[in-house]
């Protein structure tokens, strides 16, 4: 368990960033982040708890409670909370790999020194965990990418990556909930909607959810 004292810093007057990262991403630290996030929401004056990657942003009313008090409470929660896996939902995401909507597929396979087929099979073999939702509405930061499939982000981000793009950036995997700029590589496309403003619950995925990619086709 990641019980090392986290770094706590001000993010303006009404928020604190609790950073438990020790270099590379750790799944067990992330479980602690989720657990502390849940408990932090019960603290007086706390308005939002936003899990990041091995860190947690806690937003509070600074006129109701001062930052030092919240910082002490969060530090103590970090040390005393039991990290545990969240019993999240399981999702299967059908993916059309390659083609016009998966333009980096061949380059990615070559970077991994694999055939396209092998790279895709390995991408679809893993179970991914939604570590955090953020950046844009419903965007999942997925952990669980096979390290041999990792590929550093593009030097220059694309100004538009389409909604539904199945992407990887460094050691992380993701799916675009909407068309937006991104520096991640595009492997394929899914028709599953991750964000729908008109839905009762606009965001499909939650931290702790598990994801498998299913191959619907592989196009050259």
């Amino acid at each position, binding site marked *: 368990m990641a019980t090392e004292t986290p770094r706590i810093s001000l993010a*303006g007057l009404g*928020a604190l960033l609790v950073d438990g990262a020790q270099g590379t991403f750790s799944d067990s630290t992330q479980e602690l982040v989720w657990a502390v996030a849940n408990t932090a929401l019960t603290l007086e004056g706390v*308005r939002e708890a*936003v899990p990041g990657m091995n*860190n*947690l942003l806690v937003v509070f009313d600074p006129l109701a409670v001062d930052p030092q008090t919240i910082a002490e409470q969060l530090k103590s929660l970090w040390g005393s909370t039991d990290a545990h896996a969240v019993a999240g939902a399981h999702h299967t995401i059908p993916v059309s790999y390659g083609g016009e909507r998966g333009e980096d597929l061949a380059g990615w396979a070559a970077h991994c020194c694999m055939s396209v087929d092998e790279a895709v099979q390995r991408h679809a073999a893993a179970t991914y965990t939604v570590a*955090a939702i*953020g950046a*844009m509405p419903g965007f999942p930061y997925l952990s669980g990418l096979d390290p041999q499939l990792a590929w550093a982000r593009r030097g220059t981000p694309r100004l538009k990556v389409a909604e539904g793009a199945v992407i990887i950036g460094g050691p992380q995997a993701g799916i675009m909930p909407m068309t937006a700029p991104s520096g991640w590589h595009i492997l394929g496309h899914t028709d599953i909607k991750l964000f729908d403003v008109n839905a009762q619950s606009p965001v499909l995925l939650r931290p702790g959810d598990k994801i498998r990619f299913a191959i619907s086709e592989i196009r050259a």
Partner: protein
Amino acid sequence: MIEILTTGLPNTVQDLGRPGYLALGVSRSGAMDKDALAIANLMLGNDPSAAGIEVAMHPFRLRALVDTAVAITGACCVASVGGRPCPPWWATIIRAGETVVLEAPRFGARSYIAFAGGLDLHPIMGSCATDVKSNFGGLAGRGLSRGDRLALNPAEYRLPSSGLGVALEERRGAADGFASAIELRVLPAAEFDAFTPASQAAFSGSDWSIANEANRMGYRLSGETLSLASPLELLSHGIVPGTVQVPPSGQPIIQLADANTCGGYPKIATVIEADLWRLAQAPIGARLRFICVSIEVATEALRSIHRWRHAFVAARKQMTGSRGQVDILQDSVTDAQRT
């Protein structure tokens, strides 16, 4: 109902935003100058969070299709309602068929127009604010176009015949300050100490200017190059409006209302909430200066805003038609109630 006659796409429907959804990746959004919109609403007897229009591109014209009342706040521009000159921070009656005209600001960058009852739009996640990054909220998630018609909520409104004005003590001296460099109070953020001593000194010791890329998502600044003492690789983390990030170029970016909810660049400081309106009113090219303050100073600044908002509500209740001017002294509730 109102109809938009002259506009640009940066002009949007805004309210006080959609807090509470950061963990779903949804930005806070809402008016860039929240106090200006809140006061405009309060002048009309609306809830401060009623939806109005944020005008970031002037000139702007609209026509009222019904008898109603409007309040215009924010930037100081030459404005008229039904052909009658309308001073800044003023609320007045408007008749069906009359127009509201806002010319380019003499000072400031964003004007706010509130309507009696507020704009009647379908709220998404509790808010009618337009999120221009994610294209939802407001009017179909987009900026206003010529010919757009917007419905108003039914409302009763009472205003003195001459209208009602507000003078905010805090903003009286601001025009002079804006003429030189706009001062922004900041609290140090997570990576402040990771910057070289020279960069730390340059951050608050030199002037910055707002580069061309400045919108509701954030402002890019230009000035001295800030550098880390040694390279840092950060994992993605939640950020708030006001966060001053320093990407590898060394030129800071201030994240604002519609910013991404997570970022990965080192953060040198955060502009305090009480000063975000200064950024909202800072045009492209404006010069900025950062002043590092203590938690106590930041708290007092926020407390003072809450005090004058309460003072305003109290003063409006006591309002008589004789003068129509409500002076809000930011440092004292009782002073405001005396006027």
